[in-house]
């Protein structure tokens, strides 16, 4: 019938209409996550402690998205290093001051004889002073990087401190070259005399004569000097290698390598400075007659006999030194 057909058309049309409405409503219960299999930040950080990807920039270092190790490095550099450096350097200065006030200068007990023996040649002194003066500048400019901001900046203000730091940094970078040459020459020049032997063991057992009036025998370099030699060669080598790595960033390593290089460079450097303070002390005010060795190159024969008796015997046998028995004190002129 016509009215039934109209009724059916109406019902079907209404249902279709309702179906279209229902289908167009977003269905919250079935949301799809298109990035479900993609990496997550915390997952990558836990696995590798860095997040890295591909970049279209030629500078491939920019591919590192996140390296939280930078924060650990900051903690080392601002806190740990300052403690280590402060304690070793100030500690060494304190030890030297106390030692000088109690023991005093190690005197030449038999007095000056007035006769000398050649200890270091002109070339040896040249190498030593080149390395030493470069070391002083490198030490000061290096300490400025670590301690300048808390200690010096408040005193001189921002502009002056930046200007000074800029020049200190250039000095540090460029004087590293003659310093490295000096360390290499020191290594070659004096390796023969700095191999440890039994005499050194004996010298050490007797404390090097640093307290009391003992004069343990020694060859050209005693055990204390050999220690300084190896500290200079090994420490100097370490700061040179890490220093050049820092100076040419990312030529050899990524960012973790650079952070490690800075850590090694700074720790070795502050220990090196502490050791050299001891060396400078003993070579200047710590021992009478010691400075002559590097100053003029000729040392008093009595000084040589007291502190390096075996070396004097060797030199006398070679005819390089005035022969003579026990020394007699002579009034200083």
């Amino acid at each position, binding site marked *: 019938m016509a009215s039934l057909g109209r009724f059916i058309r109406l019902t079907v049309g209404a249902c279709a209409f309702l179906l279209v409405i229902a289908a167009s409503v977003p269905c919250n219960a079935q949301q799809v996550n298109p990035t479900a299999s*993609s990496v997550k930040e915390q997952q990558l950080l836990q696995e590798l402690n860095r997040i890295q990807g591909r970049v279209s920039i030629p500078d491939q270092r*920019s591919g590192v998205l996140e390296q939280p190790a930078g924060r650990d*490095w*900051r903690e080392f*550099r601002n806190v740990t290093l300052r403690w280590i450096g402060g304690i070793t350097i100030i500690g060494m200065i304190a030890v030297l001051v106390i030692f000088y006030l109690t023991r005093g200068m190690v005197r030449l007990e038999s007095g000056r004889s007035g006769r000398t023996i050649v200890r270091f040649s002109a070339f040896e002194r040249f190498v030593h002073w080149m390395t030493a003066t470069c070391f002083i500048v490198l030490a000061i400019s290096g300490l400025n990087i670590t301690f300048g901001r808390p200690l010096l900046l408040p005193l001189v203000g921002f*502009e002056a401190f930046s200007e000074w730091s800029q020049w200190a*940094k250039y000095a540090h970078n460029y004087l590293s070259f003659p310093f490295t040459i000096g360390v290499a020459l020191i290594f070659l020049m004096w390796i023969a005399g700095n191999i440890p032997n039994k005499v050194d063991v004996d010298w050490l057992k007797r404390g090097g004569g640093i307290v009391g009036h003992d004069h343990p025998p020694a060859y050209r370099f005693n055990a204390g000097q050999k220690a300084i030699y190896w500290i200079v060669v090994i420490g100097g080598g370490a700061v040179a290698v890490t220093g050049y790595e820092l100076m040419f960033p990312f030529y050899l390593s990524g960012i973790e390598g650079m952070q490690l290089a800075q850590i090694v460079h700074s720790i070795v450097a502050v220990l090196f400075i502490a050791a050299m303070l001891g060396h400078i002390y003993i070579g200047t005010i710590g021992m009478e007659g010691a400075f002559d060795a590097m100053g003029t190159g000729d040392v008093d024969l009595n000084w040589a006999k007291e502190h390096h008796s075996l070396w004097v015997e060797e030199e006398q046998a070679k005819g390089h030194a005035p022969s003579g028995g026990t020394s007699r004190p002579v009034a200083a002129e």
Partner: protein
Amino acid sequence: MARMKFLCDADRCIECNACVTACKNEHEVPWGINRRRVVTINDGKPGERSVSMACMHCTDAPCAAVCPVNCFYTTADGVVLHSKDLCIGCGYCFYACPFGAPQYPKVGNFGSRGKMDKCTFCAGGPEADGSREEYEKYGANRLAEGKLPLCAEMCSTKSLLAGDGEIIAQIYKERVMKRGYGSGAWGWKTAYRETIES
């Protein structure tokens, strides 16, 4: 007071590099300096993800902490800026920065690499706002004009958001709720020590 932050919605980033182009154009950034970059993880594989990264303007910025000459400063908005006049170009800020934001005009030869440059949140530098000197040294200062960084403004999918931290965190949370997924605010834990619950 607003606390300015960046948020890159890594689920929306399509690696179009519009943010990079906008930054380069706005500040006339020379070739070789990359204030903003897009990093793609697992490129070409299922699970590929792209993130746009520049300076995050961290709370307790590590770059500022390690600088030997203390050339950084944080504005009242939380934007981390620095002075190129004081910078000695030593490179320590790059070692400390978790995000690789500092850039240098030259390569090699530590300390002669020129003054450090980085994203400024389009907030210029210590020179007078909007001055020629400021533009030549630090780029445009949009914040002084009341505008937000151009990278976020130009983002084609609105994946990169920049502005007050509370507001953009809210926007991100609403997005995540609406679509049902979100990989989190990349870099926020490292930079701001907070996460956005999603």
